[in-house]
């Protein structure tokens, strides 16, 4: 066996040029497959980060059953264990307390439904990036009883900073929740859905309005590294009392988003499949040529008494060696390219960029740095190499030494 390994290794370097061509075709296969897939995954990650940063965050904790029935009666007071879990994990940067409910806004003879969100403004600024969205006025102090309204609402009522708006709603356990609050600022959200009906207030004032002191509807976690989300979720759900609380990630918070990505990703898989067909053809081509070139050699080996099975084994080992070598080189070769396109993402053309920016998104396509992509595709390419090696194997199997030597 050791002998076969040695022979395979020497065979590779005996004809350096041929081996380098084969290795380079495998190398480019991995290079291009990883390149294409990294951009695909990069687009999705960017989309997710955009959507998540708008409102929901990556992870939320609610009272069990809140998501099914988003009523203020399903609010909760977080107990110490929850706070401890969130404090003691390095991957959680911070957590935002929110009290959300629905209310009718009114002024003079106009009314409009709105989402009332009690928040801590410093923390939400980190998550939802509020500062650039503030088009007039300022953030209220945590203790004040004033509010920020979205631009759509402001133009509906034709109001500006300093005017007051009436809120009519239903408080905790049926208490009436009516009040009048001054507007201290106006926020412009890119999504029309939010822009037409969002009202932000300091959480203290909201809790008073809804007669729900200390109560929250959700805890929104700010996490350090989205790629570790699954591990973090597992960690928290193990410690959290799941009878009392529900832990939801963005996938369940934004099911439409998941649908969109899945539909799109399926299309991407088909395109990658096409790319793989071209790649396989390239690899098959080099192996075919190699077989033709070495017919004479195979013929001699077999006529001097080498068993066909051993020759085939040597060939498989050669392929594997070249495959692994090319994979390592491919991974090393693509990494700086991926890194570059992660730091300097491809920018969309002017017209496209405009429509993306109008949604408040950056008009860029970055490459993903996900390590799984590297190893998955190196694995697939290795498999393709092995499948292509079937050709020389079959050729040897059917080889007639005399005929081969004359080739």
């Amino acid at each position, binding site marked *: 066996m050791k002998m076969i390994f040695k022979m395979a290794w020497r065979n590779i370097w005996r004809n350096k040029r041929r081996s380098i*061509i084969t290795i380079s075709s495998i190398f480019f*296969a991995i290079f291009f497959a990883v390149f294409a897939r990294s951009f695909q995954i990069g687009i999705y990650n960017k989309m997710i980060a955009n959507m998540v940063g708008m409102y929901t965050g990556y992870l939320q904790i609610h009272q069990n059953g809140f998501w099914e029935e988003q009523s203020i009666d399903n609010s909760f007071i977080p107990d110490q264990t929850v706070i401890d879990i969130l404090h003691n994990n390095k991957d959680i940067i911070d957590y935002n307390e929110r009290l959300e409910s629905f209310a009718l806004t009114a002024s003079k003879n106009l009314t409009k439904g709105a989402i009332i969100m009690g928040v801590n403004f410093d923390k939400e600024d980190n998550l939802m990036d509020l500062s650039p969205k503030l088009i007039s006025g300022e953030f209220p102090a945590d203790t004040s009883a004033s509010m920020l309204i979205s631009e759509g609402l402001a133009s509906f009522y034709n109001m500006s900073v300093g005017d007051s708006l009436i809120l009519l709603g239903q408080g905790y356990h049926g208490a009436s929740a009516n009040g009048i609050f001054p507007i201290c600022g106006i926020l412009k959200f890119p999504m029309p859905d939010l822009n037409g009906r969002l009202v932000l207030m300091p959480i203290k004032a909201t809790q008073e309005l809804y007669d729900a002191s200390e109560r929250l509807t959700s805890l929104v976690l700010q996490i350090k590294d989205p790629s570790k989300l699954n591990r973090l979720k597992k960690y928290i759900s193990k410690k959290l009392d799941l009878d009392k609380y529900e832990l939801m990630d963005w996938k369940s918070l934004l099911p439409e988003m998941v649908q969109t990505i*899945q539909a799109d990703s399926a299309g991407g898989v*088909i*395109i990658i499949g096409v790319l793989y067909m071209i790649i396989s053809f390239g690899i098959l081509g080099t192996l075919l040529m190699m077989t033709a*070139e070495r017919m004479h050699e195979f013929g001699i080996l077999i006529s001097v008494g080498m068993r066909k099975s051993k020759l085939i084994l040597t060939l498989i080992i050669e392929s594997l060696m070249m495959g692994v070598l090319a994979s390592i080189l491919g991974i090393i070769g693509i990494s700086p390219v991926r890194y570059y396109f992660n730091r300097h993402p491809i920018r969309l053309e002017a017209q496209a960029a405009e429509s993306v920016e109008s*949604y408040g998104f950056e008009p860029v396509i970055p490459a993903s740095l996900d390590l799984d992509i590297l190893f998955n595709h190196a694995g697939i390419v290795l498999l393709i190499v092995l499948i292509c090696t079937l050709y020389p194997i079959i050729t040897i199997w059917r080889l007639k030494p005399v005929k081969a030597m004359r080739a």
Partner: protein
Amino acid sequence: MRSFLVIGSIIMGIWAGIFVVAFCYGLNKQRTLNSINNYVSHIQIHHREYEKDHDSKYFLENSSRIKKELEADKNIKAFAFRSLLNGMISSPIKSNGVRIIGVNKNEEKKLTSIHSSLVEGSYFESKRKNPILIGEALAQKLKVKLRSKIVLTFQDADNNIISGAFRICGIFKTKYSKYDQGNIFIQNSDLQRLIKSEEFHQLALLCNSLDDVDSTYQSLKNTLSDYDVKDWKTIAPELAYADEIMETWLFLIMIIIMLALIFGIINTMLMAVFERRRELGMLMAIGMNKSKVFILILTETFFLSLFGAPLGMFLGAFTIRLTSETGINLAMVGEGLRSVGLGNIIYPEIEAKFYIFITAMVFIFTLIAAIYPSRKALKLKPTEAIRTI
């Protein structure tokens, strides 16, 4: 054998290019059609001020004139007047803000596919008074079922608060649960009884085909210049966004495919040159000059391309022919797409000019790819090359 490999690579490259372009266009078209048929239609007409604050006082004045105008246009397949009101929907347990869409059931049926997205009940077939269609997600939120009674509260154009009791006659489910949660359908006739006037806020229309939209849009903009006329691209910029992203992405993936093809061909040709070094060495030894050897190999490649190109085009056209009828079901490869809904089946399609374009591109790239191996052939030393076995 060697020649078949190069021809094969060329066929593969052309086929892949054609297929990928057709597939991406099919994907986008499906997404656009899905949105047009379910939500936006081709063109919408509103009161000039309606867009700004969606106030119900901005209804379409003189709607009979619009109707006459549209009926005169042969490119228009169907149109429907709708009343749009923002209001609250209340069940005994909960209430929620919704957009109330008042429709004429026969007009609407021709325009949108709501009637075919019902999961329960029927499309305004109920004999009871005031039937209403609500989304599945909203029904769950309000904890109501088919035939439950719910109350709608809204303001009319004079800002009077109006309430009316409705009975759920059908529950629909579209692809977007957010849409299902925020929109309900009632009949215009019922709505008009409540607000005691006949006014519409929106007119949506479908042209005979997507290609007719631009011309119809321009002509309507002229004839109905005192209204706000918008086409689907302006109404749903996210569809245009998807188009743009797709175009950039397509460009990128084509570059990748072409590069992969070039390297495939370079490698195969290099192998071919080295395999033939004895033959090439012999040619040089008996006096063929180097530029002729170079041209020989390039010409060989050219002939191989001539063989490959039509075959590749044919194969591409054949694949598209095949798949554009049956469609490619994405559920085969996508997790979570098991439910076969609209938009999961892609029908690839391609404009004729792309055949030429892609074939020309592959042709040129093949010749470029042949240059390096041909140059390598020049560097062979005849004496050494002849001696190798």
